């Protein structure tokens, strides 16, 4: 093969789509559907092409199906990270590799992470190997309360990470919003309302739009927020800030709000539930980082759930570009709370749903992602034990029906330094 042919071959390998007709049956495992139902012992997961055909106890396996024996193992949907910055950062402090926000840009709401997400960033490979297959990817903010458009991505080893571009707009309306808007929540709320009004002005006559507050691109980006066709992810923590966000729908009734963070959500859980607003909450936040977090507790998610709030685990500002693999540990900790007097946790089934189907549903993608129900994208993980337990390892990851490589540079470094003293040649020759 000449060099060009080799290049083509490797490029083809990168985008290896499942054969349309290929059918795979994963048999004998403890199957977790991911929708909050109890695991099924000795179940089968049947995949055809990039979709789940069936999962459960009584699945007929076609004669020509490829079989993967998962006896003694657990089979689950891939983990769905409810809030992240995966793919936007290679090395956090190396600014050229950090695309979370744009402090030098004149734009805000129009910024769009779909152009920045790098499927070849090493955090994507590391977290893929830990069973994370999908993620909400949000920008952060710099000069405005608005961060821009976020996306839903897959963590597959291919060049097309975007599942849904422009899936939501991100806005800060708590302590961060206070500082972005100029030093007061009065300012962040008037800013929010004024910018949305400006966007309406833009819509009436784009040709003559001339605003002191907003660029035309940003105005255009806010229009689908106003009419509810694009979700609005709002980062707030305190009970009072949450109530003020819920109140926004008095003036902007179509806003499709999702709360992010919400450390004090439990204090106003009934109001959140009554508003029908879902939450991507931080699981183990329990310290008063700021005065907006005074009542933070690990029982927050459990209490909100008990009040009828739809709540999933997100990781805002919590190593959210590198450590989505913490999702399982966080979910496991919420299960642990059940044995702590006065604490409120989640059942195991609920906890796993909080990192699979529930975040997918909150992003209106529950029909396509987040569980092993028939018709969903075939994101499947095989584990050698309880996926929420710390000792458990991932054995197989399938994304969109494609078997994924679990290799990453951490594993390569591990193998190179298994015996660190150089042998007959320096370590650099060990590859």
């Amino acid at each position, binding site marked *: 093969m000449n060099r060009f042919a080799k290049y083509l071959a490797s490029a083809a390998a990168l985008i290896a789509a499942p054969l349309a007709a290929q059918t795979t049956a994963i048999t004998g495992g403890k199957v977790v559907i991911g929708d909050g139902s109890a695991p099924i012992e000795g179940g089968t997961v049947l995949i055809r092409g990039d979709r789940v055909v069936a999962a459960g106890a009584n699945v007929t396996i076609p004669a020509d199906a490829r079989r993967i024996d998962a006896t003694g193992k657990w089979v689950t949907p891939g983990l769905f990270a409810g809030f992240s910055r995966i793919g936007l950062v290679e090395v956090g402090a190396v600014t050229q590799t950090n695309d979370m926000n744009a402090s030098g840009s004149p734009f805000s709401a129009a910024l769009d992470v779909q152009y920045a997400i790098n499927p070849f960033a090493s955090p994507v490979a590391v977290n893929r190997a830990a069973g994370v297959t999908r993620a909400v990817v949000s920008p952060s903010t710099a000069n405005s309360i608005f961060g821009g458009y976020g996306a839903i991505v897959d963590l597959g080893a291919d060049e097309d990470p975007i599942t849904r571009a422009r899936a939501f707009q991100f806005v800060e309306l708590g302590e961060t919003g206070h500082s972005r808007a100029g030093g007061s929540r009065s300012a962040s709320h008037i800013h929010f309302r004024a910018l949305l009004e400006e966007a309406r002005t833009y819509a009436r006559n784009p040709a003559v739009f001339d605003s002191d507050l907003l660029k035309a691109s940003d105005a255009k980006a806010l229009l689908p927020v106003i009419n509810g066709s694009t979700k609005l992810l709002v980062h707030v923590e305190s009970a009072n800030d949450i109530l003020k966000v819920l109140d926004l729908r008095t003036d902007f009734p179509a806003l499709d709000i999702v709360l992010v963070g919400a450390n004090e959500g439990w204090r106003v859980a009934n109001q959140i539930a009554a508003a029908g607003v879902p939450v991507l909450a931080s699981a183990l936040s329990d310290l008063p980082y700021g005065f907006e977090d005074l009542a933070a507790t690990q029982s927050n998610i459990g209490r909100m759930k008990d009040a009828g709030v739809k709540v999933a685990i997100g990781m805002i500002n919590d190593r959210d570009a590198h450590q989505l693999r913490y999702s399982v540990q966080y979910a496991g900790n919420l299960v642990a709370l059940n044995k*702590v007097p006065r604490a409120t946790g989640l059942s195991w089934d609920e906890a796993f749903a909080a990192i699979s189907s529930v975040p997918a549903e909150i992003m209106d993608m529950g029909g396509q992602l987040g569980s092993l129900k028939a018709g969903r994208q075939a994101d499947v993980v095989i584990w050698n034990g309880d996926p929420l337990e710390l*000792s458990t390892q991932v054995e197989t990851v399938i994304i969109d029906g494609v078997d994924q490589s679990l290799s990453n540079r951490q594993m390569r470094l591990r193998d190179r330094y298994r015996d660190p003293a150089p042998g007959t040649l320096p370590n650099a020759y060990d590859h």
Partner: protein
Amino acid sequence: MKFRALLALVAGGSLMAGCAATASDTKSASAATPAQSGQSGGPAFPSTYEAYPSTPTAIIGVTIFDGEGGRIDNGTVFMVDGKISAVGGPETSVPENTTMVDGSGKYVTPGIIDVHSHLGDYPTPSVSAHSDGNEATAPVTPEVWAEHSVWPQDPGFSRAMANGGITALQILPGSANLFGGRSVTLKNVPARTVQAMKFPGAPYGMKMACGENPKRVYGGRNRMPSTRMGSLALNRQTWIDAQEYRSKRDDAKPPKRDLGKETLAGVLDGDILVHNHCYRADEMAQIIDMSKEFGYKVTAFHHAVESYKIADILAREGICSAVWADWWGFKMEAYDAIPENAALLQQAGACVIIHSDDENQIQRLNQEASKALADGRAMGLEISDAQAIQWITYNPAKAMGIEEMTGSLKAGKMADLVLWNGNPLSVYARPEKVWIDGALMFDSGDPKRRPVSDFELGQPGEGDVK
């Protein structure tokens, strides 16, 4: 300890100034070296900690991880007068009038110890008024003491106890400076003053930092160091000056007291332990050579994400690595971190400590140790559960110089221990009770046995399970 600490308090506080402490008083604060003495000869800023009242207590039918790699099933731990009296199997005899705790299905470990914390110095709420962890006005500040920044009302202390079973911890200055200052080792007991938290008899540590942080902080101001070579030059010149100070210290006319050089001389004397923030393997090797040039020892490299690359060297040199289980990628010098770091060090016979440097992960060092253990096993390394517990108990105690007093469940040691409601290496386990010097300081079943800091009193969420 209670009695001795009381003596130290009397000597320092109530008696006339100039009234020299007795020999036994001086010895009681075993770190009372010249480098840290007050003018009167007694220790400066002495510990006023006293153990809280305890009742003779036995935990029976419990699985014991003793902190030194041992495990006893269906075991008994008996503590009396703040000390561990007996540790053994079901045959262990317990006197009458002992409070019995049924430990069946539960686990007991020594109190968890964090060798790297900034609680109190960088407390929550993390407002700028509370930012007291880096004296980032000069790159060489061995004269500052972390204890003078500790805010005892940091709610993080109580979280570390209730969720993490932390009974002792070292508070370090931050890593902006090459020489960050003295550390302080605390008992994780709520108190009005930091002196009432100071671990009696614990030696001091000194924080050093290599790598990106000092050169970023000072290079950004066009000051030395702006490079790694600048850091080493400034480090070496500082040690040269410290050696000179130390050589003149006992002259007939000694030099004027110099707080920074007192600390550096204390390191050269071997009384103050060096805790060196250092990520990269090649830089650790440079620091080791520098320590040999000036005749001191590095006790532990902290954040040592690349220790696995030189595990053999670290084992040979007898230097501990204080590491996270899996942090990586947040800056260039953390880029090559791997989750098998701790296990590879253990495999090489090097000293391993799992540390937090974080107000959240200090609440689950047991889980971090468990992940590091699992990743080692996944690559085929054989490490026992009990060895992983040693990473968060005896080993940090050793690096803090308090291993004769705490860090393992041995008769005669301080009764610092945690009863877990399940295997502490499981994600589903939490502390049920925490004793410090035999006193029950946390009981998950008793809302009144849960500390609530002044800051949280009268606030939303006061006394919640957190």
